[in-house]
């Protein structure tokens, strides 16, 4: 299993997509620190930015500010922590996870090179575990890079104004990990079901939109209790960055755990006896 992890890592660092994902994360953190707001391209989910909860002025006033005026205002606002807002808003890093899944799993199927591995090197079980494992590891590393880069950018661009301590930073990182693991598992499971890059992209890219749309429809049509929306993945991701209660952490972890189990079960079951073409 270690061998296949090593081999895939060897291949991953030679693919353009890997560096595109890294550079994208760095650009967004630099951009966010520079304007003192979460890079809008990373915003997703049902929750809105913390900025509006920390305002001493009417929201309409802030809208009149230029970018540099907004930046100055937020730097000197003791209640606003960009890093926390950035973490809670960066759900769109999911799209970088898709890149990692494509590199590790889908490209192997699309190129047909999976045949070489399964016919003469390792069993399907080991193959599955190794591939999912590496996808999860790469997603976790991408998240870590996201955390470290925004922290460093805050120090570089904003002289460490309103900065979180490294311990607080890591606490948020660890609390958000279940969501990361769940997303990586969902993507891995889908990759083993669809087994081609184009099909995986076609399903995984609109997945979050569709999921949120369905929840919104439920909310509107069925008078769905809004409290349940707090357990939607992007909401969990948001609240985990805002000192959640123990019970919320436990419930969220259970939901993420269920997603990990369900999608890995679906993925492995679909792959276990599938004919490899």
């Amino acid at each position: 299993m270690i061998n296949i992890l090593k081999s895939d890592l060897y291949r991953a660092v030679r693919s353009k997509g890997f560096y595109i994902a890294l550079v994208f994360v760095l650009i967004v953190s630099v951009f966010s620190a520079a304007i003192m707001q979460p890079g809008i391209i990373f915003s997703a989910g049902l929750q809105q930015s913390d900025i509006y909860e920390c305002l001493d002025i009417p929201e309409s006033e802030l809208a009149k500010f230029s970018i540099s005026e907004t930046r100055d205002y937020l730097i000197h606002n003791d209640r606003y922590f960009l890093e926390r807002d950035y973490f809670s808003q960066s759900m769109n890093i999911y799209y970088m996870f898709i890149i990692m899944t494509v590199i590790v799993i889908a490209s192997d199927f699309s190129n047909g090179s999976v045949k070489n591995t399964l016919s003469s090197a390792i069993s399907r079980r080991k193959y599955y575990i190794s591939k999912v494992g590496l996808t999860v590891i790469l997603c976790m590393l991408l998240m870590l890079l996201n955390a470290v880069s925004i922290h460093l950018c805050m120090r570089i661009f904003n002289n460490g104004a309103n900065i979180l301590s490294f311990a607080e930073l890591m606490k948020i990182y660890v609390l958000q990990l279940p969501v990361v693991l769940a997303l990586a598992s969902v993507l891995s499971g889908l990759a083993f079901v669809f087994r081609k890059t184009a099909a995986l992209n076609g399903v995984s890219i609109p997945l979050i939109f569709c999921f949120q749309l369905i929840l919104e429809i439920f909310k509107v049509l069925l008078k769905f209790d809004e409290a349940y929306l707090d357990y939607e993945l992007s909401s969990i991701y948001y609240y985990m960055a805002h000192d959640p209660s123990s019970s919320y952490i436990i419930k969220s972890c259970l939901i993420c755990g269920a997603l990990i189990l369900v999608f890995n079960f679906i993925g492995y079951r679909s792959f276990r006896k599938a004919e490899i073409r």
Partner: protein
Amino acid sequence: MREIVLQTKRLTKKYKNFVALNSADMTVYRKDIYGLIGRNGAGKTTLMKMVTGLAQKTEGDFEVFGKNSNEYVSEKKRVGCLIENPAFFPNLTAYQNLRYYAYQKGITDLKQIDDALDSVKLTDVRNRKFRKFSLGMKQRLGIAFAMLDNPDLIILDEPINGLDPIGISELRDTFRRLNEERGITLVISSHILSELYAVANRFLFIDKGIVLKEVTKAELDFECSRCIVVKTNDTKRGATMLEELLGINDFKVIDEKEIRIYAPNIKSVDVNRALVNGGLDISEIFESGVSLEDYFKQLVGEGKS
């Protein structure tokens, strides 16, 4: 007794109502170069896919190095494969692609990669990306991959597809060298009988998912050689008469209605006269001798009936 490397027993693959392979039996011995011959869609790739674990069997079983399909995973390292078209990562070079698989197989001696590339004459283009390879080069890289880690059994599906005549000739030499010098057993599929005939020592003819015949090269030569075919209702008496009246021992009773005489310098007219004079009813007598292609056509024809 020769060691059996690969054996299938009533191996069957069905896709809903379509039977891709029907109860196939084959036996590959150590140091064989085993040719799998059949037209496109005959079931060759399906058979290879099942044996290499890329497709699930519907019925029957197979053994590789004495291990059945459930225990076979532990022996996978002893098998090198190239199934269907050679598939590698287009953004990696030939060397990087093999390095990737070397990591997977736990190969620490990187010289093996160079040796594999050298044996298929790809050393000069080792740093060229796979996507820039010609079809022939891709095939050769696939064979280099199959040879990586010095397997005991190499399974190659249509390895000569896309190769030019010189490439085919070089590949043939490579197969012989691997077989003779390293003692590697090879299972090679092709729809080009003449190419397989030039290198293999045993053959399996397959058509429409049905195994038609498993023969050695000597048997194939024997069956394709010039002969006199005698059709009669009493082959037992015919055989006795051939020995006693004409002193011929070089013949074969094919079935209860056919005898084939392979003895040289004997004319069908003389055989006919002697047997008729001896009181044997002969329904047909003619001279035969078929090319490999004709032989295969005959087999396929038999398969139809």
